[in-house]
């Protein structure tokens, strides 16, 4: 007869399972702190793609499509973007990660990193397309979008290292 987990164990498990989504929300909030980087460009939204990609590859059941949509919508509310734009962007990025999961999940780090760049580029292009349609213009400055892509590319390895550490420390037995 299997032992039923106690209430404490259930809460502990629920907390552990919420770590991927919590990390994405944390990165979203960290990204909007006033770091005063206007000279360089905006820092935030694409950082959230990192936890979405990472956990979709390694713990897909803890980063569901519903969670991704909710994070996108929260991002839209916080950043003041047109509601639904980041939601759509994150969902498309998530779909790219899901579709390539079998290729990237067990691959060497450099391939996984390339996968993130692919996902980030596709998400960025979708966002550009939607904004161009909504705003009715395409001749605006694209430097911030490219800068964000670069920030995401550079930030992926350290973030992935930290996520892997968290995964080993706290989520070994969590599916």
């Amino acid at each position, binding site marked *: 007869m299997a032992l039923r987990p106690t209430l404490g164990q259930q809460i502990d498990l629920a907390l552990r399972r919420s770590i991927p989504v919590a990390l994405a929300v944390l990165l979203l*909030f960290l990204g*909007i*702190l*006033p*770091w*005063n*980087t*206007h*000279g360089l460009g*905006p*820092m*935030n*939204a694409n950082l959230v793609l990192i936890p979405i990609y990472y956990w979709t590859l390694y713990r897909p059941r803890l980063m*569901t*499509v*519903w969670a991704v*949509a909710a994070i*996108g*919508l929260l991002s*839209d*509310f*916080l*950043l*003041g*973007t*047109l*509601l*639904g*734009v*980041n*939601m*759509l962007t994150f*969902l498309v990025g*998530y*779909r790219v990660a*899901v579709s390539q999961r079998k290729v990237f999940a067990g691959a060497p780090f450099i391939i996984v990193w390339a996968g993130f760049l692919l996902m980030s580029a596709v998400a*960025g292009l979708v*966002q*550009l397309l*939607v*904004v161009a349609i*909504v*705003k009715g213009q395409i001749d*605006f*400055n*694209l*430097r*911030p*979008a490219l800068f*964000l892509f670069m920030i995401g590319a550079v930030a992926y390895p350290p973030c992935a290292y930290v996520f892997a550490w968290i995964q080993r420390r706290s989520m070994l037995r969590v599916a």
Partner: protein
Amino acid sequence: MKQRVGSVSVAVAARNWTQRFAFVLLILLSFGIMLVGKADTVVVSRARTLLIDLIAPVMDAASRPIASAKEAAGTVQELIALKQENARLAEENKTLLEWQSIGRELQSQNASLRDLLKFTPDPRASYVTAPVIADASSSYVRSLIVLAGQNDGVVKGQAAITGAGLVGRVLEVGKRASRVLLLTDISARVPVVIERTRDQAVLAGNNSDNPELQYLPRDVDIKTGDRIVTSGVGGNFPVGLPVGEVVQIGEGHILVQLYAQLDRMEYIRLVDYSLPGILMQDLGIDTSKAADVASPHRAQ
């Protein structure tokens, strides 16, 4: 055993189908939300301001260590450049003293001319000083969240300035916090005038640090370094607020360098000029009420 494997594979297939169905549903939902958001309904606006209010205390607490760290770094930089800065300030002080004597002369001349014309002076501006608690910018949006809202007398449409010049305008107002749309945002439009030639134009954000001048006359005589100030057209901002200066004149575009340093804003002022502007009238807001609201930050 076979039956168990079969039921597991059915469950996995069902889960995959649910996931795919959810994905398509959520994509459609995001387009639906975009349509609703584009209409900019009261509900959407309220939801945004409610969220800003909710996160304001957290962002305020979280942004304080950053402000302290920046202050410490700034102090070190200042100490290094102390001698050089002192010489520059001495030189600047000399120039300012000259301007002060010119200013006093003009002030007395202006007072006597106003007296002659029976001129009614503009209402004095009142302002709220607010700390910047979030830099809510992304690839296609440039905005800030400041810790001052309706409780402090902030009203939608107010000018946001620093000591150097105009920064943007208040876009959304919550109880405790507000969102300021920066001049660099792609949807920001401000009526301006070239101070030297008095030619009117519109300063349009283009998603870069240098907004563009649009709708200038064809034969305009514009030079690099020309000062750009607000024209007061539309009534949202008063006449003559410093905005920036022309830095680049190219084929089909004239770029402006803003006076306000957007990368060094820890506090900004939200100014109420009590102007019956188009924006406020359209919104049905009685601007005279804003000036009556008591606030700990409020000053005149």
